[in-house]
């Protein structure tokens, strides 16, 4: 939502420009007309929220104060929200936890998805059926998955039941009741739900690697792992970046499943940034502070995205 500040031309994945097309004035007018709805929607969701958040983030305003948000200037607090934020360990912990979840879930989803995709590269009996089944978790509504995993991870639940059967003695870990295992449980749920997406995308990428080049490498004496490293991975680079980007973006916002499973608990053990903001918004009701958090995150994300894109463009040019 900082799109206001980024009117300059950028090139994200290449051909944003329309080289080779004659654009006469009529076309330009139509182009503006066509992009107008999207622009308006973006402005609609950007301008007011941005300005309002900026405004109230400078105040102590809370709906509990009994004055409208536009009167928040009465509660001007000299940037106290921002200075508070700097030392709000719960915020930084939540941020760190979100990063941790992302650093574990996304690579795990990637590696599992890639592993499965490799197994699905060539034909074998049952492939189509297996493929379809593999995609089921993506189709389960996240909130439903939340309830599902809440039950699965009960100490007397199916997960422990299976582990008990496997290890041959009763296993009754209360997953959701201790901080470490609760975090593991919510990560397992995320990995369960989103590995299929990685699998789907990466398999498409693998199948798209030209077979002749693979054969050529084989004939030149490259082993499987050499081919994978020198042919498959470089060819998959864009696909991998897309897959990882989608998951990083969505995983950063992790909320639905997690919130239903643990509510961010026990304590703050599974409190991610979205859950933290939810709680501060809905329970503590210190909305000026929430606005400050939102703006800080927004600015940080915008910087990260710009860096990533300029890095990508630089790499492309090289």
């Amino acid at each position: 939502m900082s799109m206001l500040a980024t009117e300059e031309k950028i090139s994200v994945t290449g051909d944003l420009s329309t080289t080779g097309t004659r654009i006469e004035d009529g076309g330009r007018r139509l182009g503006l007309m066509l992009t107008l709805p999207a622009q308006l929607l973006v402005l609609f969701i950007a301008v007011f929220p941005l300005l309002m958040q900026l405004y109230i983030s400078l105040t102590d305003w809370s709906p509990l104060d009994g004055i409208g948000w536009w009167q928040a200037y009465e509660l001007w607090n000299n940037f106290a929200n921002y200075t508070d934020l700097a030392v709000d360990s719960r915020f930084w912990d939540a941020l760190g936890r979100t990063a941790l979840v992302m650093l574990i879930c996304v690579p795990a989803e990637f590696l599992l998805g890639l592993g499965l995709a490799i197994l699905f590269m060539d034909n074998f009996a049952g492939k189509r059926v297996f493929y379809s089944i593999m995609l089921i978790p993506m189709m389960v509504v996240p909130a439903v998955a939340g309830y599902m995993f809440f039950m699965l991870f009960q100490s007397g639940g199916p997960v422990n039941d299976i582990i008990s059967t496997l290890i041959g003695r009763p296993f009754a870990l209360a997953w959701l009741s201790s901080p470490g295992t609760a975090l593991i449980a919510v990560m397992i749920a995320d990995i369960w739900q989103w590995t299929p997406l990685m699998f789907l995308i990466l398999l498409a990428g693998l199948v798209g690697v030209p077979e002749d080049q693979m054969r050529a490498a084989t004939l030149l004496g490259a082993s499987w792992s050499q081919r994978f490293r020198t042919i498959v991975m470089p060819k998959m680079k864009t696909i991998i970046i897309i897959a990882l980007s989608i998951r990083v973006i969505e995983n950063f916002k992790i909320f639905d499943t997690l919130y239903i499973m643990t509510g961010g608990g026990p304590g703050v053990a599974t409190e991610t940034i979205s859950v933290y903001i939810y709680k501060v918004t809905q329970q503590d009701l210190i909305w000026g502070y929430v606005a400050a958090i939102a703006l800080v995150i927004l600015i940080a994300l915008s910087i990260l995205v710009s860096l990533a894109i300029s890095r990508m463009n630089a790499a492309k040019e090289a």
Partner: protein
Amino acid sequence: MNRSLPFEIFRYAAILLALAVTLIPTLWMASMAFKPIAEWSAAGADLTWWPKSPTLDNFRFIFGTSTSDLIVALDRTAGKPILASLLSAVFGTLIAMTAGTAGAYGLSRFGSGQNLPLALIQLRLFPPMAVMIPVMIMWAFFGLVDTWWGLALIYGIVTLPFAFWLMKTFFDDMPREIEDAALVEGCSRLRVFMKITLPMMRPALASSALFVFILNWSDYLIALLLTTREWVTIPVYMASLSSSMTGQLYGAKAALGLIAAVPPVIMGIAIQKHLVRGLTFGALKQ
């Protein structure tokens, strides 16, 4: 490819393991949907994998036709929430697709709106939670709280990035010769877009729309914040399925969960092929 026997054994073992991990939770949920109360047993007691006495009560219950004493007061059935989910997801998709398709075409063909790609990435990247305060205020101001159209509007906005990026990929790939030919014939650009381009893009439109639909259909957080009663969606409604009599109504939740999985599964199968192409954002061209 050389396939050795050990590799085949490994492959099937690994795939079967993956299938088990994939299926067991879902099958367990499915089986839960057919269990009577006595077998829900979320809270201790015995674990049953398959319903010992299968029943359709849970389904009847959420549609208000069960006479079993499951609950204290189910003053509303799942019908309206399902309708709410459908309406908001469908119209949200419509908004996202209309604005996204037009915008993507404008950029892809005429280079208009160069700011959109990055702006939309940021829009998607940013946690919706963090802008919900102003959004709630705006929605209340416009009288959009607890309406399916209000929900559709915000859905349309948050999934606009996907609609835009997917359609942009498709437009970038589309050969322009046909359009150029029509232009030479004297059609106006708008007419070309409406009469030639869009019909040609029908599969792309369908797959993007269905993907966006699934995203909208999955939402919990936004509906939680922007609906109160009349138009709560399935996930929000699901949270209210608990009772003093028996605690959480897991059977009913599971039944509703199964129903909620129907549209995405059907559509997922329908667009499987395009889904892949969409999700890879056209990066598959070598």
